């Protein structure tokens, strides 16, 4: 084994490529002086090294394993411009509130830059095969989490991006100035097509813009997919005639094969649906295929993030959801479930704000308080509509709008279908609550504090809203989030 300690650049080539095993940092994967280029892909990993492994060596190992390296020196490196292809770990910072004196073992943020030519244009599959391919099982690390990525504009422009985007979605639906309203049909499983369509009709006629299939509604013995599509589209069109509004239902086209998915999507199109839906579990390539199909066919593409919590929730290992959000904006979905803050599912307010900005802004500046480590220029790529769903109700409307803004779909499943006066009343309660809060906000009312009074006032003339407020008045899901930000802005103490 070589004992060389000098920097790669200064080392004699002969020593560097002797057969044997070198430390990764000595193979050129640790370059503290490296200044990332505008065209580099940059990844930020949270690393928890095994005992005795130096953080720089761990970072270099991650750089190596996610780019060109293998465990030993290979002479064939010398047939390539390997200095360019090697990923470079260029910075390692200890994570605040980890290590000795805390309840968490020492973690580090490792910044790694990748040459653009390492990646195939427009391919999430290729990007992820490198960045999260082998490296997550690497033994010298106890745990590894991909926290954030900077996608260079040069690479952004090789992706299609959202098939429709927020602006065009609103123009197609003719709905402006307020969040859109949705609900997931309940019970999730077991309804026949005919009964299922009834729920859809009632909810849309009552005032929702969208109803949604759940992630695991595909084509089961109790309801095959064609049956569902036919009954649902009857309901959608009847509701449209009854209100004069464009209405939609996310028809889940998730299936076993691409051929099945295309067949289902084509049928949805034939029936005049404005939107179809896929699950995250179909995989990145299938998602990109469906995004292209949706762009070709003027269809809004809804993505349910089924399965993501298996790798996004724990703070020390996996992939932060903000990274998934970036990938999905590139991949080209129009809707993505992105957290509610106040509902039943995981969602720290600062983390959610960072994710929403990633989906909706033309340029997302670095903001450590929101978990965003890099400036991200989206280069005119269309915007993804975030979807907030899971355990939310009309009484939280002012909080939802304060946290999430107006370019968002608010999905009240139980909060619509569980209304004591029925589904139509539930939908109406949600729509009235929404419009009353938006009206008040625009008039300059401080909705965060005075929202409850605004809702009470509207409930005086809207019986369904009154019933909704009474039923769910005290329902909150107040648990500590596991995925939180590491940098908390603190007030400077007065001396």
């Amino acid at each position: 084994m070589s004992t060389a300690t000098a920097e790669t650049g200064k080392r004699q080539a002969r020593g560097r490529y002797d057969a044997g095993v070198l430390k990764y940092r000595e193979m050129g994967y640790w370059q503290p002086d490296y200044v990332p280029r505008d065209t580099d892909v940059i990844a930020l990993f949270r690393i928890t090294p095994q005992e005795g492994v130096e953080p720089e060596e761990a970072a270099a190992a991650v750089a190596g394993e996610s780019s060109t390296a293998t465990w030993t020196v290979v002479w064939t490196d010398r047939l390539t411009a390997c200095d360019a292809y090697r990923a470079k770990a260029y910075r390692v910072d200890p994570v605040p509130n980890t290590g000795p004196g805390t309840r968490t073992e020492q973690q580090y943020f490792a910044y790694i830059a990748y040459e653009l030519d390492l990646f195939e244009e427009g391919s999430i599959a290729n990007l992820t095969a490198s960045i999260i391919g082998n490296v997550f099982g690497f033994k010298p690390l106890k745990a590894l989490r991909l926290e954030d990525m900077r996608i260079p504009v040069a690479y952004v422009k090789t992706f299609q991006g959202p098939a429709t985007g927020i602006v065009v979605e609103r123009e197609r639906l003719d709905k402006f100035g307020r969040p859109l309203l949705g609900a997931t049909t309940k019970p999730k499983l077991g309804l026949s097509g005919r009964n299922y369509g009834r729920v859809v009709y009632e909810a849309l006629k009552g005032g929702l813009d969208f109803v949604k299939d759940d992630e695991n509604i595909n084509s089961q013995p109790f309801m095959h997919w064609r049956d569902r599509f036919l009954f649902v589209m009857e309901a959608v069109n009847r509701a449209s005639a009854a209100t004069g509004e464009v209405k939609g239902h996310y028809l889940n086209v998730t299936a076993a094969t691409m051929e099945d998915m295309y067949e289902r999507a084509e049928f949805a199109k034939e029936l005049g649906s404005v939107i179809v839906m896929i699950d995250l579990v179909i995989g990145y390539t299938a998602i990109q295929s469906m995004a292209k199909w949706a762009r070709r066919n003027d269809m809004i593409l809804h993505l349910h993030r089924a399965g993501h919590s298996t790798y996004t929730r724990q703070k020390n290992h996996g992939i932060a959801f903000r990274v998934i959000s970036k990938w999905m904006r590139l991949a080209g979905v129009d809707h993505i479930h992105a957290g509610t803050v106040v509902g039943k599912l995981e969602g720290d307010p600062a983390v959610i704000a960072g994710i929403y900005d990633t989906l909706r802004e033309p340029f997302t500046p670095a903001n450590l308080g929101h978990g965003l480590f890099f400036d991200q220029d989206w280069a005119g790529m269309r915007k993804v509509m975030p979807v907030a769903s899971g355990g939310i109700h009309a009484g939280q409307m002012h909080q939802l709008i304060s946290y999430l803004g107006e370019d968002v779909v608010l999905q009240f499943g139980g909060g619509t279908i569980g209304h004591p006066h029925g589904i139509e009343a539930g939908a109406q309660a949600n729509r009235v609550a929404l419009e009353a809060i938006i009206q008040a906000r625009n008039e300059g009312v401080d909705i965060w504090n005075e929202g409850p009074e605004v809702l009470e006032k509207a409930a005086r003339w809207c019986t369904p809203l009154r019933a909704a407020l009474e039923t769910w008045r005290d329902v909150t899901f107040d648990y500590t989030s596991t995925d939180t930000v590491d940098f908390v802005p603190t007030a400077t103490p007065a001396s």
Partner: protein
Amino acid sequence: MRITQGTFSFLPDLTDAQIRAQVDYALRQGWAPSVEFTDDPHPRNTYWEMWGLPMFEVQDAAAVLYEINACRKAYPDRYIRVNAFDATRGFESVRLSFLVNRPPREPRFELIRTEGPGRSVRYSLRTVRENEGAPE
């Protein structure tokens, strides 16, 4: 039938003071309000008639109300809406749109189904006005 297009159609019809507050909000955001009217509220009827150009120069909501009232006087039996346009990059579209006038008797929509093979159906909507029956 009360159609529910526009941002505030589930609330009681806005009073002039409430309309003024919403227009004020739009002006504060730097959006240009405009007034449009139609007798056909079909959801795919995107292009209502423009009552003048979008008001890019206006600083006060009273000016918009002035045009709304002129339009109401000319077309009391039509739908009238206020749109607010945002020219910011990344939007360049309508940001707020709400009704400020409805005809005394609103039309309804007839759902026309054209059945095809395999139980498939093509749907279309037809606007049906007062004194007008369904087609034969």
